């Protein structure tokens, strides 16, 4: 559950502290805000309400509504404002309530934030973090359930983070905040209550370093965000079926740690890529291509991709349930692949 660099902070007894993923994110923000007065948070209902998911509860009490700022429902407007603020001495953290609403900020993020540094010949910088959500299964229907991180991953100039555990969430958030580039931080709504080990000491996890969440020999499950949990669940089922699965979490889709992915598959010679976005023209396509290219001669069958079904997410529970990858799906796919060869 840790990168080599992080081992040291994981070992001591202090590491036994448990936080939810939501708490881990809040703690990262609070610690960084104490350290750096340039950090401000802005978004809809982030202050007294602490966001609709209550992730930021208490921050406005500690830092004041001057630093934890409620905005109008103007995603493009306050994102643009945050970009300008980031260029001129502040370090804004922007909250976009549902990942579906990033559709409203694509111009600001892709045409402005992502390009300012390059277009200015390296002179202006945009140290901005955008926090938003992804993930279905909440019966929220088509406009509140998408996982659109592939859009941002496609745009040079942006970095894209997808934490899968409380430990990672805190360490990655610290790096995101300290980064001088626009970083988008996608949080799976269904994981906010997930508990995990988070040491009390200060640590940061570098962006661009994948993590082997579980070692195995027979098949590599590359998974992102909450799909890491799904993959870990499937790995347990596979273990019972006598199959040893390695679970690799890229943690950031950009920068992408190709080497760790490829090395794992060189070892196992089979791979499934699991991501909650649409598989078509999505993250699974890139990760599968990187593996297929890097581990070509080691693969004994095609890389399998599992993502959201290519349909708008339906409201009705029995319909929604078949659109998202499950442990059972991953288990069956993996077992099939391990049997076949």
């Amino acid at each position, binding site marked *: 559950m840790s990168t080599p660099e992080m081992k040291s902070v994981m070992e001591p007894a202090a590491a036994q502290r448990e936080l939810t993923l939501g708490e881990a994110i809040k703690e990262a923000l609070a610690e960084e805000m104490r350290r750096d007065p340039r950090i401000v948070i802005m978004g809809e209902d982030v202050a*007294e309400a602490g966001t609709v998911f209550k992730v930021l509860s208490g921050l406005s009490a500690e830092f004041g509504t001057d630093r934890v700022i409620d905005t109008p429902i103007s995603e493009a407007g306050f994102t643009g404002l945050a970009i300008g603020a980031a260029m001129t001495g502040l370090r804004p953290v922007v909250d976009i309530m549902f990942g579906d609403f990033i559709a409203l900020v694509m111009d600001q993020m892709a045409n402005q934030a992502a390009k300012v540094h390059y277009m200015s010949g390296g002179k202006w910088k945009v140290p901005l973090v955008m926090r938003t959500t992804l993930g279905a299964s*909440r019966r929220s229907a088509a406009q509140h359930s998408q996982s659109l991180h592939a859009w941002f991953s496609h745009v040079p100039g942006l970095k894209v983070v997808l934490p899968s555990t409380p430990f990672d969430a805190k360490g990655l958030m610290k790096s995101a905040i300290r980064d001088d580039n626009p970083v988008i931080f996608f949080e799976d709504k269904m994981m906010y209550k997930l508990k995990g080990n988070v040491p009390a000491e200060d640590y940061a996890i570098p962006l661009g370093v994948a993590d082997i969440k579980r070692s195995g020999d027979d098949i590599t499950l590359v998974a992102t965000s909450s799909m890491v949990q799904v993959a870990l669940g499937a790995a347990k089922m596979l273990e019972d079926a006598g199959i040893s699965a390695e679970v690799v979490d890229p943690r950031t889709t950009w920068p992408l740690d190709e080497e760790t992915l490829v090395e794992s598959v060189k070892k196992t010679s089979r791979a499934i890529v699991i991501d909650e976005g649409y598989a078509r023209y999505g993250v699974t396509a890139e990760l599968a291509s990187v593996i297929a290219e890097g581990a070509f001669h080691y693969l004994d069958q095609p890389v399998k991709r599992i993502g959201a079904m*290519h349909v708008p997410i*339906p*409201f009705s529970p029995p319909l929604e349930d078949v659109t998202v990858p499950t442990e059972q799906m991953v288990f069956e796919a993996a077992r099939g692949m391990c049997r076949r060869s």
Partner: protein
Amino acid sequence: MANTKTSVSKQSSSSPDSGPDAYIQMYRKMAGIRLFEERVNDLYTRALMPGLAHLYIGEEAVAVGICSTLRSDDYITSTHRGHGHCLAKGAAPDRMFAELLGKEAGYCRGKGGSMHIADPDTGNLGANAIVGGSTGIATGAAFSAKRLGNGRVSVCFFGEGALGQGVLYESMNLAQLWKLPVIYVCENNTYNEYTHYSETTAGDVLGRPRAFGILAERVDGQDVRAVHAAAQRLVDRARAGEGPAFLLCDTYRYRGHHVGDVSREYYRSKQEEQKWMSERDPIGLFSDWLIAEHRATAAQLQSISAEIQSAMDAAVQFALSAPYPDPSEVQQDVYA
């Protein structure tokens, strides 16, 4: 460039179309929405309804006052808080409940749910879960109506939170440039989720449409007769080809932003809620008036409520026992 029309003609709040029957009809609709939403609350708190439920309770006079001036082939677009608009425009409670429960018999075969009720038969272009997301759509329906010469008008319902979305201004500019028969109905229920609208809304709301040359009026959104009268004028005007209008309705949501929003003290006081409910309840005010004006007796109104209650019982029962769509339907209707 068009002139800015800022004058608001003060008319009597009773309108020619609203004879006694029409008023009873409006009462029936308002009570229907209230009781529908109570059932939604009940279904939700009993964990029988999946997803989120944003109740319209307290705002009934707006949807009913407006939709009672519309033809059944006129268009509306609605919001996340859309049950009232859909019912006022003619949706049947049983298929509404079915949709809210994700059943095949629902208006959208369960695919849309509470925030996406849509129905061509009643001119309902769809509720929308993107704040401000339907302002273009409503404007486009008005564009078609004008182009096709079918005399329809289009009503765009939205909360005051949508005043934060730029696309509203883009749409209003287009509507006024092209003199489209669209009415923008801003339901100012005082809160954008958990934030008071004064913290998100600079300047003067009516000044915004007026800056685009759009006739804009403000009305007491708890007075269904006033809403109806104002809407009648604006709808008639739009239908006559005189262009778009904007109606600001002051109102209040009695319940939480959604059913789960129960501890509200940190953003609004119980007294404030109590004051609206006891002094400005749209159904209470209207029934008092109906009785005082001898247009109905208390007993008549009670029997209407009782009638609706049993209709709601049946509708809920229908929805609860209706089957879910088959999982194989999931890939249907992605493409036409």
